[in-house]
C-alpha cells in the first residue's frame, strides 16, 4: 500500500486560560519566571497528549511559551528594542519588534523547549523557527535602513539556531516564511536568505509560506519561485482561499523533490468544518499531489481559536484523513 497523507499542525495552539492569566501576571511582575515556565511546560504536555490521542503523525509543541512568532525571536536576540502593539486584522494585534542595532544570536533560543517537548513523546516533534524575511518584514527597522542587509543578518542567526536544533536530534525543522510573497520583487532575495538558513542541514525542512496572496494572478507571478524555495516541504494555506492554488499545480506541476503540507481547515472562523467538507478538500488535493508527498494540516496556527474549537477542528481533520485513506487504500 502507498504510504502518505501524513497529518501535522502549522505550529501554534491556543493557550489555556490559566496560562493566559499567568502570562499577564508575569508581564506585571506578579509571579516569578520559574512559576510561569512550569505552567508553560504543563500546557505543552497537554497539547502533546492531545495530538497523540488524536493520532497526529508529526507533532508541534504548540508554542505555549511564545507570544508572537516574530517578537519571540526578537526578545531573545541582540539588536532589538521593545516591541509595540500593532493591529494585523479585525481585532487581532501583534507585537511588532524594533531593530535598533546589529542582530546577533548569542545562545540557542528554542532548543531547550524542543528537547522538552520531544522528551514527552515517541512521535517526532518539529523544531519551529521564523524565517529571516518574515522577521524583517514584520519588524520596524531603525538600524539597517536596507532590507536585504537586515534579512541576511537574520538568515545567519536563524541558520545557527537550525544547526543547534539539528545537533540536539531534531529531524524536522520548520522555518516559517508567511510574508514571502508580500513584495513580488523581493521573493528572490527571500529565497536566497532561506537558502542560507537550510544550507548543510540534514534534517527534513518545511516552510509555512505564501500566506494571504491576494489573487490568482499574483500567486501565479511568484509561483515558480515559491515551489523552488530551498526546503523539502512547502506548507501552504488552501481552505481559506478555496484551493485556488491547486490550479497552478495542475498547470505547472510539483517539482519532484518537494512535498506539500496542505491546509484544509480555515483557522479564522469559529465554525467547525464538517468531515465531508474536509474530505472533499483532500480528494481535490489528491487529484494533483501524490499521497506520498502530501501532508494534511490546518491552514495556519490555531492559536487564535478557543481550545475546544482547535481540538474539534483537528479531530475533524484526522477523521477525514482516516476515511480518505481507507477509501483509497493508503497506509
Amino acid at each position, binding site marked *: 500500500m502507498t504510504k502518505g497523507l501524513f497529518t501535522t499542525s502549522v505550529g501554534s495552539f491556543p493557550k489555556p486560560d490559566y496560562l493566559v492569566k499567568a502570562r499577564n501576571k508575569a508581564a506585571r511582575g506578579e509571579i516569578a519566571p520559574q512559576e510561569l515556565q512550569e505552567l508553560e511546560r504543563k500546557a505543552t504536555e497537554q497539547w502533546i497528549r492531545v495530538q497523540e490521542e488524536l493520532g497526529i503523525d508529526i507533532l508541534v509543541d504548540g508554542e505555549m511559551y511564545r507570544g508572537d512568532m516574530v517578537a519571540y525571536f526578537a526578545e531573545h536576540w541582540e539588536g532589538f528594542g521593545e516591541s509595540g502593539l500593532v493591529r494585523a486584522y*479585525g481585532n487581532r494585534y501583534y507585537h511588532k519588534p524594533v531593530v535598533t542595532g546589529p542582530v546577533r544570536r548569542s545562545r540557542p533560543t528554542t532548543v531547550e523547549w524542543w528537547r522538552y517537548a520531544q522528551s514527552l513523546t515517541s512521535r517526532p516533534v518539529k523544531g519551529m523557527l521564523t524565517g529571516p524575511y518574515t522577521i524583517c518584514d514584520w519588524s520596524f*527597522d531603525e538600524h539597517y535602513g536596507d532590507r536585504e542587509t537586515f534579512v541576511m543578518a537574520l538568515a545567519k542567526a536563524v541558520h545557527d539556531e537550525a544547526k543547534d536544533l539539528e545537533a540536539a536530534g531534531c529531524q524536522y525543522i520548520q522555518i516559517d516564511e508567511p510574508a514571502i510573497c*508580500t513584495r513580488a520583487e523581493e521573493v528572490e532575495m527571500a529565497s536566497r536568505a532561506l537558502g542560507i538558513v537550510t544550507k548543510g542541514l540534514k534534517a527534513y525542512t518545511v516552510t509555512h509560506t505564501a500566506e494571504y496572496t*491576494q489573487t490568482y494572478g499574483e500567486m501565479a507571478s511568484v509561483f515558480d519561485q515559491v515551489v523552488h524555495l530551498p526546503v523539502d516541504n512547502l506548507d501552504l494555506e488552501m481552505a481559506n482561499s478555496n484551493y485556488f492554488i491547486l490550479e497552478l499545480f495542475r498547470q505547472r506541476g510539483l517539482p519532484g523533490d518537494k512535498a506539500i503540507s496542505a491546509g484544509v481547515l480555515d483557522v*479564522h472562523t469559529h465554525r467547525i468544518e464538517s468531515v465531508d467538507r474536509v474530505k472533499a478538500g483532500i480528494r481535490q488535493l489528491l487529484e494533483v499531489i501524490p499521497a506520498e508527498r502530501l501532508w494534511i494540516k490546518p491552514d495556519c496556527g490555531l492559536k487564535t481559536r478557543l481550545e475546544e474549537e482547535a481540538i474539534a477542528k483537528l479531530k475533524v481533520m484526522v477523521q477525514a484523513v482516516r476515511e480518505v485513506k481507507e477509501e483509497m487504500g493508503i497506509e
Partner: protein
Amino acid sequence: MYTTAVGHYPKIGGKAPNLRTALNRLDLERITQEEVHRIEDENTVEVLEAQARAGLDVVTDGQVRWEDGQTHFARRLKGFSIGGLTRYFNTNTYYRQPVAEGPVAWEGPIALQDYQFAVAHSSKPVKAVITGPYTLARLCVNQAYPDLNSLALALAEALNQEALALQKAGAPLIQFDEPAILKYKEDFPVFLEAARRVTRGLTVKTAVSTWFYDISGLYPQFLQAPFQVIGLDFVSSRANLELLKKFPSDKELGFGVLDGRNTYVEPVEQIVEALRRIKRVVPLDRIHLSPSCGLEYLPRERAYQKLVRLVEGARKAQEVLA
C-alpha cells in the same frame, strides 16, 4: 501650508477604555454593541485631541470605527457579502475581502454620522474621508458585474451619494482614498471615469489620496482627475519627487513626507530639506504636509510623535524657507 493626517490612527494605546478589550468582550457577548459604540466615541475624542495637541491644522476622525477601508463601506452598501482574509497591498495588515454579489447601491449615510460626531468634538477642522470607488472595486471580488469598469462606475454612483451628503453636512474637504491606482496603473481609464462620476455635483474642495506606490507612468495625465488636492507618498519611493517636475497652479499637493510605516522618527532637517526641494515646483501655500499614509501601522505613542515632528518640521520650514 497646512499640516494634516492621511486617515487612520492607532485604535488602542491611549487613556480611553481599550477598544480591543471591548471588542473581545462583545465577541463573548459580555458587553453590548451600545457600550462598544460609546468606547469608540471616547477613543475618537481622544484621537481628535491628540491630533490637535500635536498641532495639526486639519484632522480626521482617526477611523477608529473602521475595521478597514474596504469592509467599512462594503458592509453598509447594498450588494456585498464579506469573504476571506487577504493582505492589504505589501503590508502585514489584512482585511476580509468584500464580494460584490449583486447590484451595488447606496442605502443611506455611511461616514456622515461619524463626520458629524468628529466635528462636534474637534477644535480643528475635520476632513471627511471616503474610500474611492476604483480602489474599492479593485480590492473586492467581483461576482456581480461583467468587468471591473462596470463595478467601479456603479460604486462611483453609490459613493457620490455619500459625498453629496457630506457636502451638505458642511465638510470643508472630502478626500477619496485611491491607493490601488498606482499599483494597477493599466486601470487608469477606469479610475478616471469613476473619479468624474464620484465627484459629480460637488462644489466643496476634493482630494485624492494615494500611498505605497509612485506615480511613474501616470504623470501628468493623473492631473486630469477632477480633484483639487493630489496626495502622494514621497517615502515609499523616491520616484515621486523626481517625477514632479511641473505642477499646475490650480492644484494643491498632498506631500507625504514622514514614513507612516516605520517607528523611526525622522529629524526636522529632513522635512525642511524635502520642502526645500518641492518648493521649486509647488509653492508652500499649496502644500498639505502629512505622513506618507495612515498611522495605524504604528503603536499609538509613536504615531503621536510622528505628528509632533511633522508640525515641528512645518514650522521650521516656514521660518527658514519663507
